[in-house]
C-alpha cells in the first residue's frame, strides 16, 4: 500500500514528528512564527492520550516540560527567539539536571522582537551558548518539511538517549512553507526510549555514572524517589560544593556529548558534489537550499563547487569541516545572520583555505545569485 502523503507546513510536520516519536506532553506559549506547532499539538495530543497545556509564559512552558519529562513523558515545547531567550535559565537547568526534552525554535529576525514574520538564522550561537555556565549542546537544523519530521523524531531520540535538552532550529521559511511529506510508517524510523533503571529503588542514584556517561533516569510516580536540583550535585542528586565532585560532574555532562563515540552518533551531515570540490558552500537550514541551487549553477559553468550541509549543528562537525578546509581552495558560509557559524568554520579550518561569508538579515531569504556572486569573487 502506498505511504500516506500530504502537503503540509513545516510547523505541522514538526508536530506530526513529535507524535510519531511518542511525545505525550506539550507545554507552550503563542509566539510567531512557531505558534502552529502548539495549535497542531493541541489537536493531536488528546488523540494519543497526551496532554497539551498552554502556559502563562515561556518560562512556565519550559518548567512544565521539565516537570513532565522527570515524570516520564517525552516532552516538547516550541517557540521562537525571544521565547528561547526567556527559557534560557531553565534550558541550563535541564542541562545540569539532565532532563530529556525537545525545544523547537522557529527562527525569526532578531535581536529582541526583531521581525516576527520574517526568517532568520541568528539563534544558532544562542543554541550553543545561550544559557550561562559550561554545558554541552545538541542542536539540529533541518532544511525541508520532510526533514523537520525526521529530525524532530531524532531530537527526541537524542534527548532520551543522552538525557538532555535538544534544540531543533528551523527558520520561518521552512516553518511556514508547505511541501509534500511522505509520512514514515510506524516502526520505519527508530525510536529510542530512555534507558531503564536496573537497580533497586534503595540503590538508585539519579546521577550514578559508574556504568556509563549517561545515568539511567527513573520517573517520578514510580517507586524510585530522588532529589533534583539546579545546584551542582553529587551522584545521589543532593547539592554539593565538594570540588572534586563538582568538577567530575561538570566534565562528565560535557563528555557524554562530546566524546568521539557520542559525536559519531549525534553528528549528521549531507554532502553534495564535495568529492572534487574546490569551493565548498557550508550551509544549513533553508540557506542550504539556495546553496544547493548555486552548486548546480556553478557546475554548469565549470566551477567545481560542492555543498556541505550540517544537519546536526551542535556538536559542531569539526572533523569533516577541517578535512574540507584542507581539500578546498575556499569555504563560503551563507547564513541568514551577520556571521555566526563562520567563526566556528574559521576555528577548525586553521587558515588552510580562504573563508568568506554571505550574510543577509533583511527578512528575505538568501538567494542563489548572491552566493554565486561571492564564489566568483573569491576564486
Amino acid at each position, binding site marked *: 500500500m502506498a505511504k500516506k502523503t500530504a502537503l503540509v507546513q513545516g510547523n505541522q510536520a514538526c508536530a506530526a514528528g513529535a507524535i510519531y516519536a511518542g511525545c505525550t506532553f506539550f507545554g507552550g506559549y*503563542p*509566539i*510567531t512564527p512557531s505558534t502552529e506547532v502548539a*495549535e497542531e499539538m*493541541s489537536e493531536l495530543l*488528546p488523540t494519543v492520550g497526551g496532554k497539551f497545556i*498552554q502556559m*502563562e509564559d515561556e518560562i512556565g512552558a519550559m518548567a512544565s516540560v521539565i516537570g513532565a519529562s522527570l515524570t516520564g513523558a517525552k516532552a516538547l515545547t516550541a517557540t521562537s527567539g525571544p521565547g528561547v531567550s526567556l527559557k534560557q535559565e531553565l534550558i541550563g537547568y535541564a542541562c545540569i539536571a539532565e532532563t530529556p526534552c525537545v525545544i523547537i525554535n522557529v527562527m525569526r529576525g532578531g535581536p529582541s522582537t526583531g521581525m516576527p514574520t520574517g526568517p532568520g538564522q541568528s539563534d544558532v550561537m544562542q543554541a550553543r551558548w545561550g544559557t550561562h555556565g559550561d554545558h554541552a549542546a545538541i542542536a539540529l537544523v533541518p532544511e525541508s518539511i520532510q526533514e523537520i519530521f525526521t529530525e524532530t523524531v531524532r531530537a527526541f531520540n537524542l534527548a532520551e538517549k543522552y538525557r538532555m535538552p535538544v534544540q531543533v532550529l528551523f527558520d520561518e521559511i521552512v516553518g511556514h512553507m508547505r511541501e509534500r511529506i511522505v509520512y514514515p510508517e510506524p516502526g520505519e524510523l527508530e525510536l529510542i526510549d530512555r534507558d531503564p533503571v536496573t537497580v533497586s529503588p534503595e540503590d538508585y542514584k539519579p546521577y550514578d555514572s559508574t556504568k556509563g556517561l549517561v545515568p539511567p533516569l527513573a520517573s517520578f510516580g514510580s517507586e524510585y524517589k530522588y532529589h533534583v536540583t539546579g545546584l551542582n550535585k553529587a551522584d545521589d542528586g543532593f547539592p554539593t560544593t565538594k570540588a572534586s565532585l563538582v568538577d567530575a560532574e561538570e566534565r562528565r555532562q560535557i563528555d557524554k556529548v562530546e566524546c568521539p563515540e557520542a559525536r559519531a552518533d549525534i553528528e549528521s551531515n549531507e554532502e553534495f558534489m564535495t568529492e572534487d570540490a574546490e569551493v565548498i558552500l557550508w550551509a544549513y537550514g533553508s540557506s542550504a537550499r539556495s546553496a544547493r541551487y548555486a552548486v548546480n549553477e556553478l557546475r554548469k559553468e565549470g566551477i567545481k563547487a560542492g555543498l556541505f550541509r550540517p544537519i546536526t549543528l551542535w556538536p559542531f562537525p569539526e572533523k569533516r569541516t577541517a578535512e574540507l578546509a584542507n581539500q578546498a581552495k575556499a569555504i563560503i558560509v551563507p547564513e541568514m545572520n551577520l556571521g555566526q557559524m563562520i567563526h566556528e568554520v574559521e576555528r577548525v579550518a586553521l587558515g588552510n583555505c580562504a573563508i568568506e561569508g554571505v550574510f543577509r538579515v533583511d527578512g528575505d531569504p538568501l538567494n542563489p545569485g548572491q552566493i554565486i556572486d561571492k564564489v566568483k569573487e573569491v576564486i
Partner: protein
Amino acid sequence: MNETHFHSIKDLSTHHLLGAGTAMCAGCGGLEALQVIYDILGEKTVFINAAGCMTLLSVYPYTPFRGSWLYTAMASAPAGAQGVRDALDILLEKQLIGTDEDLQTVVLTGDGSAYGMGLSATSAAIERGLDFLYICYDNEGYGNTGHQSSGATPHGARTATCRTVHGFSGDKKDLFAIWAAHRPAYVATVAGAEPVDLARKVEKACRLKGPRLLIALAPCPTGWGYDPQETVQVGKLAVACGLWPLKEAVQGKIVHTKPPGKRLPVETYLKTQDRFAHLFEPQRDEQTLHEIQERVDIYWREWEE
C-alpha cells in the same frame, strides 16, 4: 473637583487625537476604547507597550500617536514605565523640564500580557505606588498570533488552542479583583461600546495620582468571529447580559457604575460570535450554556444582595 464633563455622548470629542488608518483590524473594540481614552489623556503622554495587537499601531513610517512610544518586552511594560516615570521625576526635580512639560506614563497591553506574563510586573508596580495609568485591551485571547487561549478566555469559548467539544472548561481570570486587591488608587472595567461611562472613568483616573488601571473589553471580530460592523452591539450586549460588569474601585471600595438592570439572557451575546457557535450547533450544549448563565447570575446576586 469630582464634577464630570461627560454627561452624554454629545460631550465626547468628535475630533480624535489618535490618527486614523492604523494597522488594527476593522471593527477592533480595543481601538474603539483607545480613541476615547486618548482624547481625554491628551498629547502629553508616553505609552509603554508589551507585545500584542496594538504593537502594530505604530508601523513604519506612521504612528497614530502624538507622543513617544516604548515597546518593551512582553512581561515588562509596568517595569519599563517605572523607569520612564522615575526619569521624568528626575528631570522635574532638577527643573530640566517644567510641570507643563511632564508626561502621563501610560501602559498599554493586551490581556495576554496583563492577565498572564505581565501580572508580576503590574503587581510590583502597584506595590511601589507607581504613578501610572494601565490600559488593558481585553479581547480574551492572544489576538495577534491567531487567538490562542489566554488568562482572559471565558468559560465555554473556543480558541486556536482550545477546540474541545464544550470550549474552554476553566474560567476567565478575575483581573479586576486581583488588581483591586492591591488597593491601587483606581481600577475600573470599561468598554468602548459604553463611551460615556468610559470617559468618566478616564477623567477620574486622570485626577488621581498613583497606580490607576483600566480593563477595556475589546470585542474582536477576527478572533471572536463576527462582522466588524457589529462591534458596538457586541460590546453593549456584553454589558446588558451582565457578562461585563462596568465597575470601579477607589482604594478598595467597589461601585458598579452601570448595572444592567433587567439582564438579557447570556445567549443573546453568545449567539453573535463564532467562538461560541459550538454551544448552539449541531445541537444546543445546555450544560455549558447553563454554566455560563449561572456564573453571571451568581455574580449579580452577590452584589444585589
